[in-house]
């Protein structure tokens, strides 16, 4: 075989291949820029804003999901009768005013006039009646549990709704006004019967849904009939779902999205990028340690106290959250009702006391426990590892076990675990920071149950005092969970593409109403 010949052939093939690639890439590069980035047409004052979110919603039905990440889109298109503001005050929304009877059993809401759903039908009292009927018939347990004491919802006239309660409920208005529109989002009877709310949002909110490519991209546009003039500012909002953190960074750096939510790992690099702005907030995203108090040795309160006394929250912040967070109890630290950690029993690390408590409980030689957590991100694994080393010093040996999220859920809700961790988002109903969840742990101790019952019946003014007592009692019993750390959150955006960004501790996306594309 003569080399020359084969070589010549090789070069020919290479040349052919090369020219094909060149031609192809030339074709690729010559893409009309209008296709890539819709130009701001005249009259589109707010322009289009494109953002990246990590978690796509599984459903658009506001009575069908208990995960915070799924709620984030509901608040863009749905509205509630009242709304809880970040400062905790209850403000009017679809109801302009409401009256509560002296016995706390009847609420009468006067509806805002001239409000239209995205399908053009007007908001009437009947839609509110329908919303609650549907919730009670089809809602998941979590959604129904937001309104355990509602007895009946009736339309007094097209503009007035009456809600009667089985018993007074101090949390009622706070749940009705959940800014994430969980369970209380007002649906249109006509629209919900024609279109499955799981696949399309037809609400009264500032944005109306244009299209959704499941798991990929949600397109919303300004609701021209919105009752509050000038809201929203953007004409179009496109949400692209990018679960992979590095890919979201790439999308932001390449300018294909204007705003994204970095993770604790990707934020480190993003903070150094020029031309990019990163906003840090102390969020309400609280990690809590749960103990399976139904089974030995965790049914013994002193074992639970020993575990609680072994936790070093400052070290957890430093090592597991890379310094981006703060120690916390059940309430996030900024909450007006949070009891300072220094006043809560068993919240300070004390290894000697932990060993003593274990000896008292009859476990002088230490205990072996399993710590399980779901596959929901690196932070969970880091917290688990740091906890393992902290607890080991008191003789509490942890076996670490990361589980597929639904396998974990199955064990969590059946109280089939030793130790685990949960993450609580912002709650507009403060009781959700402290109440035990059904099935997740052993029976509620009598002294705690008494306090919880008192809280439900109390007036809103009495609540801070009772909640303080509940926090102290729960810390003393190390039941139903103990707060450990609260993490920082970030939003990163390109000022050349987005303006009007204001992210707060609730994690709410309501600031999308005020973002717009900067005028050139």
């Amino acid at each position, binding site marked *: *075989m*003569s*080399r020359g*010949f*084969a070589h010549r*052939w*090789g070069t020919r*093939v*290479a040349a052919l*291949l090369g020219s094909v690639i060149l031609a*192809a*890439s030339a*074709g*690729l*590069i010559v*893409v009309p820029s209008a*296709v*890539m980035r819709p130009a701001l047409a005249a009259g589109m004052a707010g322009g289009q804003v494109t953002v990246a979110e990590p978690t796509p919603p*599984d*459903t658009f*039905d506001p009575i*069908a*999901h*208990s*995960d915070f990440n799924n709620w984030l889109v509901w608040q863009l298109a749905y509205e509630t009768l009242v709304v809880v503001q970040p400062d905790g005050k209850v403000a009017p929304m679809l109801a302009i005013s409401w009256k509560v009877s002296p016995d706390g059993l009847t609420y009468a809401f006067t509806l805002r006039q001239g409000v239209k759903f995205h399908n053009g039908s007007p908001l009437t009292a009947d839609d509110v009646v329908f919303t609650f009927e549907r919730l009670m018939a089809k809602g*998941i*347990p*979590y959604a129904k549990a937001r309104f355990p004491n509602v007895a009946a919802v009736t339309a007094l006239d097209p503009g007035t709704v009456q809600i009667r309660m089985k018993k007074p409920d101090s949390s009622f208005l706070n749940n009705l006004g959940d800014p994430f529109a969980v369970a209380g989002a007002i649906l249109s009877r006509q629209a919900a019967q024609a279109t*499955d*709310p*799981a*696949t399309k949002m037809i609400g009264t909110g500032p944005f109306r849904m244009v299209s959704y*490519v*499941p798991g*990929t991209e949600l397109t919303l546009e300004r609701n021209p009939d919105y009752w509050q003039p000038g809201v929203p500012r953007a004409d179009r909002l496109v949400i*692209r779902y*990018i*679960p*992979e953190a*590095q*890919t979201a*960074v*790439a*999308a932001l*750096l*390449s300018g*294909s999205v204007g705003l994204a939510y970095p993770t604790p790992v990707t934020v480190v690099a993003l903070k150094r990028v020029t031309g990019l702005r990163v906003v840090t907030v102390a969020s309400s995203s609280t990690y809590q340690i749960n103990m399976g108090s139904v089974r030995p040795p965790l049914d013994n309160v002193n074992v639970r106290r020993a575990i609680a006394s072994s936790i070093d929250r400052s070290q957890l912040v430093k090592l597991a959250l890379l310094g981006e967070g703060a120690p916390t109890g059940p309430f996030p630290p900024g909450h007006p009702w949070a009891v300072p950690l220094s006043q809560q029993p068993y919240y300070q690390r004390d290894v000697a006391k932990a060993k003593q408590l274990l000896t008292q409980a009859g476990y002088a030689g230490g205990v072996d426990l399993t710590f399980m957590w779901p596959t929901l991100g690196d932070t969970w694994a880091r917290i688990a590892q740091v906890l393992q080393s902290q607890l080991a010093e008191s003789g509490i040996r942890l076996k670490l076990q990361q589980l*597929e*999220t*639904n*396998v*974990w*859920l*199955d064990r*969590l*809700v059946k109280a089939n675990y030793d130790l685990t961790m949960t993450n609580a988002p912002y709650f507009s109903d403060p009781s959700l920071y402290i109440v035990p*969840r*059904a*099935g*997740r742990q052993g029976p509620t101790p009598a002294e705690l149950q008494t306090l919880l019952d008192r809280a439900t019946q109390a007036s809103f003014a009495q609540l801070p005092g009772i909640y303080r007592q509940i926090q102290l009692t729960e810390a003393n019993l190390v039941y139903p969970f103990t707060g450990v750390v609260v993490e920082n959150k970030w939003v990163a955006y390109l000022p050349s593409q987005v303006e009007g960004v204001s992210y707060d501790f609730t994690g709410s996306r309501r600031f999308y109403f005020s973002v717009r594309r900067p005028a050139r």
Partner: protein
Amino acid sequence: MRYVAQRFAAGCGVLLVVSFLVFWLGTLIPGDLSTVLVGSEGATQQQYRELRHRLGLDQPIVVQYAHWLGAALRGNLGKSPITGLYATAEIARRAPITLELALLALAESIVLGVFLGVFTAVRAHSLADVTVRAILFVMFAIPPFVAGVLLVLAGALFLKPLYQVGYVPLAQSVGLNLRSMLLPSVSIAVPLAAMTAQMTRTSLLETLGQPYIVTAMAKGAPRRHVIYRHALKNALAPIITLQGYVFGSLVGGLIVTEQVFNLDGLASGLLAAIGRRDYSFVVTGTLVIAATYILANLLVDVLYPIVDPTQRV
């Protein structure tokens, strides 16, 4: 023809068995649809019973399967109780993405792999051969997720014109579609090309040593004629078998690539569906993958006698 009909019938049997296996295996995993709907906030035992009854999860597995099969035979492969989306519509939307990615990656790997295979075979044991093969080893050793993440970041920073995050349908824009597919397909094609190149080289070397090649050379046939007409054509059989296998595994195995490049294909859809215990999607998706596998292998078996006359019946 009769052979193809037989294979087709056998394929349908395989699909039936696969659907039952997936259905049954799904019930063995802890945590079902009711767990997903309740979420971490918990529910009372009574609420669980009601929910499971409403979803039909309290029926025996055989009854649930019979219901599903009955509906499936009438063309209704089910609707997710969570997303409200029909399994068939979702798969019809996602399958073309995966299929395009797999076909592109396969085409790239064949062009590059066969070229490199021939290149090294005709230069066997020369410096060029050793160098190229060393590079092939490195190509083969790079896991697609490493290549993927590096390409995503490189794409965002240096190759902006060649890069588009997420999928753009072919019908919407050919240019954007290719941009969204180029880097992902390259990340998969690299190790595949290395495999194909090795296979081509080995197979071609074996053929080049055959007496009929010596005869062809001796009678003075042009060299490239000998290599491409006589040798490569006869060396193709094992290469084609490899491609059939590779394609089958690609369709179900692109999960990492789809995730990294944010492509909403079949594999990432399956992962999400398993995550929410959406078994109508999982069963249908698995059936599509199994069917692709069966078809790809059937195609290889049909092509075989065409390239290799000794296999003709």
